[in-house]
């Protein structure tokens, strides 16, 4: 593997790791491990921990994938490994 593709792969893995940390925090953190603490906070009729477990985490999941898509497309171009446009 040459330096260029090693650098590309490293950046890729770093991006995915960062996004998966957020993925873990909103679901396992806010929705499960710290749910009782967050449930003492109530916003707009929802206990916050309950809201993350049944709504919030899902919205964040969607956002994370689209952030990933945008960042990877940029990274592909930066390293010249993107696919040709038809």
């Amino acid at each position, binding site marked *: *593997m040459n330096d260029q*593709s090693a650098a*590309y*792969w490293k950046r*890729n*893995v770093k991006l*995915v790791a960062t*996004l*998966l940390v957020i*993925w873990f925090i909103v*679901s*396992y953190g806010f*929705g*499960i*491990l710290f*749910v*009782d603490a967050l*449930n003492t906070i109530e916003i*707009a*009729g*929802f*206990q916050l921990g*309950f*809201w993350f*477990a*049944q*709504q919030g*985490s*899902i*919205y964040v*999941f*969607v956002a*994370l*994938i*689209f952030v*990933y*898509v945008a960042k*990877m*497309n940029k990274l*592909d171009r930066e390293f*010249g*490994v*993107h*696919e040709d446009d038809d």
Partner: protein
Amino acid sequence: MDLTTLTYIAVGLSFALYIGIAIWAKASTTGEFYVAGKGVNPVVNGMATAADWMSAASFISMAGLIAFLGYGGSVYLMGWTGGYCLLAMLLAPYLRKYGKFTVPEFIGDRYYSKTARIVAVICLIFISFTYVAGQMRGVGIVFSRFLEVELITGLVVGMGIVFIYAVLGGMKGITYTQVAQYCVLIVAYTIPAIFIAFQLTGNPLPQLAFGSTINGTGEFMLERLNSVVTELGFLEYTTTNKSTIDIFAITLALMVGTAGLPHVIVRFFTVPKVRDARSSAGWALVFIALLYTTAPAVGAMARLNLTETIQPGEVGAEDGNLSYEERPDWMKRWETTGLLSFEDKNGDGRIQYYNDANADFATKAAEYGWAGNELTVDRDIMVLANPEIAQLPNWVIALVAAGGIAAALSTAAGLLLVISSGVSHDLLKGTFTPDMTEGQELMAGRIAAAAAIVIAGYLGYNPPGFVAQVVAFAFGLAAASLFPVIIMGIFSKKVNREGAIAGMLVGLIFTMGYIMAYKGIFIPVMIENVEANWLFGISPEGIGVVGMLLNFAVAFGVSKVTAEPPEHIQHMIEDIRVPKGASGAVDH
């Protein structure tokens, strides 16, 4: 028009649509049969993936489960959506770059081993049959309730429809029918939810309504729900009594299992480019989230409506409970199916619905003159009965029936296709009869699909014990067997043939053995299925996580002491890690 006629029209029209699409999208090559010629637009593929993914369980059972579990139902909401992040970031783009047809094919190539491929096919077939039997059962239930036909008639009609478009059209036919099925199911799911949300809170958006105040009061819906259910001795809706470790393990097993299910993964083989595989996973989750963020609102509203229907007055007051004579029509209709029943234990002619397993509540109940809970409600009926409970027009109920069938058929078709490609492509062409021509392979695929439909129908009609354990078996085994070897195949260059085979077998045997021992599937129950007996406090539903960790550990360990993967495999891994150079779309 009466309900049955309307339902026949709604279901009939949806079937005509699916068959029309099947004829238009007939597959003529193996590429079209297995992966729709890799020419599917990412948004379209996202929609098809959503329909593929959302099964009879998502449509019919999930909101009902949440209604009765409250916060405890969150494991399904997070578990069945969070896996798409793993799919998008860890699997889909690389498997698309690899560019062939099936999941076992990737495992066989990456680990340069026919044995690995066969082990993967066996896992795939077992997982998929467990899953598909539940779908056929769902079709049968909807038919027997709404069209008032025998379960077997419903099954045969359902099998016939799937046969037409899965066998003729393969992946190409399935993709476009799944798009139609998604539209049917999402409309059918959201319309009643919007009506009910508006009736209860004045806010038509279910996602916001269940955090809104009840019409005409300043009381938030979830607060009202908490107080209504606790007054009857039930657990508060927004909390749970399950242990944190078990909730954690089940959620993780469902997420990882989602990312390891072959019928989901293979959908990302059908898009033209690597970057489409990434965005397609995002679109799939958007379409899934529409239903999955509506479901908890439906669950909460259904629980509130049901409880307040049975207990319209003050708890404990003489006339606080619904009189059996005055029960609404929907209860009468569901009583005939046996899924809802009433037993007048204290002989007062009124229905008492409360938690009689709660010892602290027993003295109060005795003071009220209650002699035990009198109403039994199968939680599977909550979504189907919801429009009736909310007194919505008959066409909405007919639409829900068509939606339930769409959800079951779309998932069944996706599963049948991976079973048939596992047999024709991985077992026959890939292993036992490599000399087959493309025409013969296509024919073998069609025959395998047809045979799989008949077996699935039989399992749906006469379900063996393992079918009821879809969550434990399908997700647990996908998490413990397929997911780790695919991930290691992409992210590690060190894991070799010996490691992968040993890892898969250990993950599979451990998880399967644990579930069998506690649930008594195939064998008698060996250990009582209670929390005190569970390993690390993890139930059979969550044990796939431990199986997955074992798989990783064994694979790395064995790979360390055996020979490294050969040079050309290391090049293959480097190649699938970059998007450039993916094989393009095949012409239709």
